[in-house]
Each structure stands twice: as structure tokens, then as C-alpha cells.
């Protein structure tokens, strides 16, 4: 074991220099362009990211960012409704889109020689949508069915919605991306167009092109199709309501007969990755791994699933890829016969013991190795790389921040982890949620 380990570290450091080839430009109208080269297959991923998401929506119009995303597949001045996707398909490609709290992104995956057609169509729908009242009626039904499918039919998703709403006392991260149902039902043409006219503009967009392409050729096409679109001079500064100091923990019991197995979740507000300041976030990545990454080797897994049979599942996770506050969370599914209060007490005991003990250097080294290797594996998925840059840049990080992140992860120390754990694991900034089928299980 020990010998193997030394060999591994040496060998890995030899390949650590390997990284994706990235070229960046900024067009005169303010649009950012990122090109990631991967010449293994004649494929390209063309992604357009708008720096606007559900957390930028006007109060009372929750869901409009996602609703608009759906409407972008309707008619423009030159494309008929549905023609965009039909054209991508007729060229052997696939297209889709997604909306998050901080961004809305549209992408196509096609043969590399079809890039120009994608740019032509994508640039066209940045400014030239022709949505009808009928589109709005039908598509509103579609997004309501989407909410039914993802949320209303899923007790875990409904519970999560309640927990997030309680965790964020002032920030729009507490409102679901897909929207609250009663507000979705009222979304109209004006809500969608108002959002579209303001935020869909080149100075609020990032173009990411990844695959079998040459950067200069991408730049030339980007200038031709996106470079001619005027910047939006009314684009508001992106300042969203922030969390006040949180002074009291919140506890919620969500009861739903469709729950098959009681479980508990604890969510804490946590610092996110910020431009030039990613160290705390990097330490939180380790903290999540150490406390609840693998059931076999993490503190919670070992204590609750191996040393005792308290739980059948344990997890710790951290999402710091956000523009504003991130979330650090634990979840525990108790074993048969263990109550939620017993499981929660056992969980807190493990976390407290972790904070008081020294961190095992072998575990630190193992996590470092895995993070370094994950960069090698990431090179096999060019769409994943495109997503990494698009998401980061729409959340205010720079290309330099993205490229420094793996090295920052390598430099995290035990002291960093202890310090950030003491700061983040503060119950006053937390929600503890119990999810049960009936009140009898809430004990």
C-alpha cells in the first residue's frame, strides 16, 4: 500500500501539466467567446450562455426565466416555430437548453462543419423572437406539466423546495427555478418579452465553442453573426438581494404519504467560489469529501454505516458553483428501527468529533490524488469542459479562475479545512429538514 502510493504520486505529477486548450476573445459589443479545442472527433458543441437565471427574475414572476427558455424554440422573424430544432436534427445534431439560478444556456451538438449554421440561427433568436399569445398558452401548460413531473409528483423535490425556501431568507435562491405553481399559472407574454428584451443581448452572453475547431475560425464566425448585434445599454447591474446575518436555526418536518423511507437533511449557507478568492470553496470541497463523500471512507459513512448500523445512507455535499451564497449539506437515511432524532444526534456527534480530531494525512493525500485524476478524466468529455467554463463565467468567475481552480484544490491544507468548517457549520445559518410519510415517523 505505502509503496504503491509513493509511485502513484510521482507518476501523477508528471501528467498534471496536461490541460484543455482554451482560447478566449471579447467581441466589441462585449460578448465573451471561449474556444476549447478537442480534435479527437469531428464534433462541435456550440453553447450560448446568458448571464441571467431564475434568481434575476422580477418578484411575482417566478419561473419566467425557464418559461422564456422554452419559448426560444418558437418562431423568429426568419424561423418558424420548431424550425430551429428541426434544422439541427436535419443536420444530424441534437439541441436543447437549460435554466439555473444564475444562467440560461442553449446548446447544439453537431458535426464540426455545421458550426456556422448553428451560429446563424442562435444569433438570430437573440433579438428576433416572434412569440404569439397562443404559444404562451400552450407552452405554459407544458412547463406546468414539467413542474408536475419534476416536483409535484416527487415528495423529495417538494421537501427540498420547502427547505431551500427556509434556508434563504432574502435571496432568490429560495425560490424554485421552475417557479412557484401559482405564479407560473399567471405568466404572460409581457412577462416573457420584458425579460427577453432586457437580458438577451451580446453584452450579457458568453459563447462557448468546444470540439474540432480552430479558434481563429470561431472568432471570425462569431464576429460575423454575434458581433453585429448591438449591446443593450439598459442592462442592469447584477445586484441581487443578499442574505442578512442569519440568527436562528430553522427546523421543518415535511409530511407526504408518498415518502417511502424517512430521512433527514441539514443545509448550511456556505461561501461560494468568488473571482480571485476560491480558497474557502476549495476547502469546502475537501470537507464534504472527508465528512460524507464515500460511504466506505468518509467520517459519516464509517461511523453510521460501518461502525454502527445507524444509517443505510449518509452523504455530505457542497455546491459552491454559484454567483451568491452556496450550500453545504448533510443527509442521513436511518436504518430500520432508528428514529430521526437518534440519527440526527449520531450525525452531529460524528461531525463534532471530526472537528476536534486531527485530519488523517492519508485521507488528504487520497482526495488530492482523486481530484488531480478527475482533471485527466474530464478531458474525455468536451461538453463537460464547455459547461465548466460557461457556468463559471456566467457566475462572475474568470477564465483564469477556472484554470487556477485545480491548483487551488491541490494546495488546500488541514488548517484551511478546520477554519472553514468552524465558520460554515453554524446552526444559526442552517435548516434541518425531516421528510416523513406521517407524523408518527417524525420522532
Amino acid at each position, binding site marked *: 500500500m505505502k509503496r504503491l502510493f509513493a509511485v502513484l504520486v510521482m507518476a501523477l505529477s508528471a501528467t498534471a501539466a496536461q490541460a484543455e486548450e482554451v482560447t478566449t476573445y471579447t467581441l466589441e459589443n462585449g460578448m465573451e467567446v471561449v474556444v476549447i479545442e478537442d480534435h*479527437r472527433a469531428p464534433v462541435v458543441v456550440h453553447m450560448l450562455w446568458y448571464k441571467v437565471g431564475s434568481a434575476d427574475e422580477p418578484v411575482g414572476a417566478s419561473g419566467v426565466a425557464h418559461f422564456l427558455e422554452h419559448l426560444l424554440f418558437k418562431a423568429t422573424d426568419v424561423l418558424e416555430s*420548431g424550425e430551429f430544432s*428541426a434544422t439541427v436534427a436535419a443536420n444530424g445534431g441534437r439541441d436543447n437548453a437549460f435554466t439555473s439560478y444564475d444562467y440560461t444556456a442553449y446548446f447544439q451538438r453537431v458535426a464540426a462543419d455545421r458550426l456556422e449554421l448553428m451560429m446563424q440561427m442562435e444569433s438570430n433568436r437573440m433579438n428576433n423572437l416572434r412569440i404569439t399569445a397562443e404559444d404562451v398558452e*400552450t407552452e405554459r401548460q407544458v412547463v406546468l406539466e414539467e413542474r*408536475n413531473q419534476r416536483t409535484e409528483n416527487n415528495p423529495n423535490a417538494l421537501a427540498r423546495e420547502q427547505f431551500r425556501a427556509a434556508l434563504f431568507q432574502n435571496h432568490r435562491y429560495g425560490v424554485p427555478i421552475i417557479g412557484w405553481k401559482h405564479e407560473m399559472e399567471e405568466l404572460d407574454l409581457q412577462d416573457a418579452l420584458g425579460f427577453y428584451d432586457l437580458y438577451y443581448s451580446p453584452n450579457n452572453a458568453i459563447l462557448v465553442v468546444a470540439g474540432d475547431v480552430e479558434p481563429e475560425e470561431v472568432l471570425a464566425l462569431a464576429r460575423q453573426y454575434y458581433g453585429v448585434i448591438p449591446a443593450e445599454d439598459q442592462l442592469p447591474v447584477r445586484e441581487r438581494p443578499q442574505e442578512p446575518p442569519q440568527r436562528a436555526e430553522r427546523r421543518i418536518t415535511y409530511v407526504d404519504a408518498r415518502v417511502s423511507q424517512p430521512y433527514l437533511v441539514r443545509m448550511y449557507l456556505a461561501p461560494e467560489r468568488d473571482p480571485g478568492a476560491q480558497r474557502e470553496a476549495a476547502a469546502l470541497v475537501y470537507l464534504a469529501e472527508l465528512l460524507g463523500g464515500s460511504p*466506505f471512507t468518509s467520517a459519516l459513512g464509517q461511523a453510521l454505516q460501518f461502525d454502527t448500523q445507524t444509517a443505510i445512507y449518509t452523504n455530505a455535499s457542497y455546491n459552491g458553483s454559484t454567483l451568491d451564497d452556496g450550500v453545504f449539506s448533510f443527509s442521513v437515511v436511518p436504518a430500520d428501527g432508528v428514529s430521526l432524532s437518534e440519527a440526527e444526534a449520531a450525525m452531529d456527534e460524528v461531525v463534532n468529533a471530526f472537528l476536534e480530531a486531527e485530519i488523517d494525512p492519508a485521507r488528504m493525500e487520497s482526495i488530492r490524488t*482523486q481530484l488531480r*485524476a478527475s482533471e485527466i478524466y474530464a478531458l474525455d468529455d468536451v461538453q463537460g469542459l464547455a459547461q465548466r467554463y460557461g457556468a463559471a463565467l456566467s457566475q462572475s468567475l474568470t477564465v483564469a479562475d477556472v484554470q487556477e481552480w485545480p491548483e487551488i484544490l491541490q494546495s488546500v491544507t488541514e488548517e484551511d479545512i478546520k477554519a472553514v468548517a468552524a465558520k460554515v457549520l453554524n446552526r444559526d445559518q442552517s435548516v434541518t429538514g425531516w421528510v416523513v410519510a406521517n407524523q408518527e415517523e417524525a420522532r
Partner: protein
Amino acid sequence: MLRILIAFCLTIIATTARAELDIQQVTSPGGINAWVVEEPAIPFVALEIRIRGGGTLDLPGKRGATNLMAALLEEGSGDMTAQEFQTTLEDLAASFTFRAFDDSMQISARFLTENKEEAIALLRQALIAPRFDQDALDRVRAQVIAGINSDAKSPNAIASSTFYANAFGDHPYGSSIDGTIDSVTALTRDDMFEAHRNALVLDRLFVSVVGDTTAETVGAMLDDLLGDLPAEGPALPDDVAFGLDGGITVVEFETPQSVAFFGQAGLKRDDEDFFAAFVLNHILGAGGFESRLMTEVREKRGLTYGIGTSLVPKYHAEMILGTVASSNETIAEAIEVTRSEWERMAREGVTPEELAVAKTYLTGEYPLRFDGNADIASIMAGMQMIGLTPDYVVDRNSFVEAVTLEDVNRVAAELLQPEGLHFVVVGQPEGLESTQ
């Protein structure tokens, strides 16, 4: 020592893209066949192993044994407990997954070039010398039972399990590979060893290797990795007829959106009409936003977020299956539109324009699938499982191109049975009742 039987340099030609894929077919000194693609650009290797059999090999009264056995392969082997095994795996930064499906076992591994010997040795230990320790068995059994409980309250799982039970009865296809709470509770360590002995065998095993390696070294690696598995296993079960007539089965479940799982009998993968049916299904329900069902049920009427169909040629039965979800108030309409599109397709077939568009998409999309080591390894193992040869990747698009309008429309009339379509609906659907 090593025989490289054939080396193909294959160019997949489509109207929109060409993908070069150099598949080398090798046979190890010990007789294990594999397909290899050398891709030195990134210093890691993706290894994919499939073994026919899977959950259909569960012995009478032991439903769930193969699934539980597969889940336990990462829970201790050789002289390592579960935690020791996982610690070693993490130190290598490798990943292994072991899964049982109805008809096969799937083993996927990903490891770095620089420690591939250690990774292969660890994988070998998991495959050849699992321990099935009692504590691991009990721990994983509890997780499997939690999954079974969860499925019992999931509308989607209730719909598919009801459909399969009614279609296949006592055949393994008629029940979940997870087993029942009773059957899983009764499984013992001996059952695990027996399931392992039966499911991991050489004579129906298929391998592909893609990444930073050479065809010359793969043979010895495979003998080392797999050579100690038993040569052969028990007979596979008999084929089974799809036993569900047309109609509707409603399963009451308190939830706002009803989910429907529907289907009818299909055709075999090696049927001479398979490609015509493949194109037909693409136009009917598999073609994303452009399919007729998406157009009619979602785009025109807003009745669902998604509807899709697929050809499902399993080893022992064939089906065309689909899913759709819609509010309790509107699911009846969604089903009516689906059935009427099924009927229209059987009666009218497709238009020349629809056929042309479908062919352009299907042939253009195909080369785009070969764009990552793990993806290529998975595709190549899947091809071997259904008896294809490497030159299929070149010929496949010509099979699509060769489909004529007459073929599609004849197959539409012969295959699609609007009256034979059965919907299992889970929820509180308004205006729908079970037929007999």
C-alpha cells in the same frame, strides 16, 4: 503469443460527418476476444465487460440474487474488507462499476495509465475473489430493500412493474431484478457465491478496451484479469411471448400527475425489418421534439412535458414501449391522442419528407456518438453482445439509407397495433377505467 485477427481502420461516413475509428480485434493467448481502440491522447483507459445472462439467471426462489451479488463485488475481496478495498481504489483514483441487468452483467472500469497494473490487479480481485462477508451482505441488503420500498411508492416504478408483470408473468422479465422484500431477505452468502459462479463466465463474455494502451498488451492483461473465471455457466431461460392484450390498466395512486407506461409486441434485433422499424419508431416517437407524438401531445396541445417511444428487443422477448405523464385531468386526452397517432401511422405510414428528414438525422447523428473513450468502449461491447462485427460501424448508415418508403409503410401496417397497445396508468386519472 498474441494474435491480432483483424485490424479495421473504419471510417464512418455520413452526409454530415466522418469519424475515424481504428478497431483492432484481438484474441488473448487464453482465448478471450476483445475489441481495442488505441487512443493515446489522454493518459487513461476505459474497459467495458458485458456478460450475457444477468438477472435471468436467478434461481427459483432466489429473485434478486444476481443483483445483490453484483452490488457486493465492490464490498470486499481477496484479503480486503469493503473499506480496505475502497480505500485502495480511491488511492488509485480509478473507478469500477458492477451492475446486473435483466439480460446481462455490466462491468465498467476507468483507470490511469500510470497505475494500470495495480488497477487491473484490484479489478481482478473483485471479479475472481469476492468475499461476500455477512456484514457487507446485510448492509447492502438493507439498501436494496430501501430501493424496493421506494419503488413501491414511485408512480413510474409502479407503472413499469405492473406492465412487465402483466406481460411476462412468471418469466424473469415479469418481475424486478431487485427481487421482493421476502426473496431478498432470505438470500444467504451461499446464494451469493452461487450467483457469482453462474453469472460471471467466460463463454458469453464480451470485452472492449479504449484509451492509452496497445492492442499488443491487451491480450495478456485480459488473461490475467479474467482467465480464472469459469468457462461456462447454466443455460439461459427460454424465450417468452409478450402476453399483454390491448387495453388500459389503472393503478390508483394519490398524486397530481398520472404516469402512463405503454407498449405492444415488437420485433427482434436481427429481424430483416429492424431498420425499417427503427426509422418508423424515430418518426413516431423517438425523434425528440420532431416526433409525431411530441408534436401532437406536447407542442400542439401542451398535454405533457415529454412523450417518447422505443424499440426494445431484449434477448427473450421484443416490445415497443413508451411513456407519457400528464395531469390527472388530461391524461385521458394524452392517451387518446397517442392511440390515434398509432392508428394513423399504421394506416397512412410516413411521408417521403418525413422519411428523408429522419434518415438525415439518424445517419448524421451516428458518428457523433463516438466521441469519448468510455462511450466508444460501451458502444463496442454492446455491438459484440448482439453479434455485430466491427465493420457494422461502417455499414450501419447504409442500412438506414436502404430503408424505402414502401418498407416503412409496410412495417407500420404490419407492426403497429392500435388495438394491441396497452397502457398502465398510475395516478387518479379522470375518465379512465381499467379494461378487462
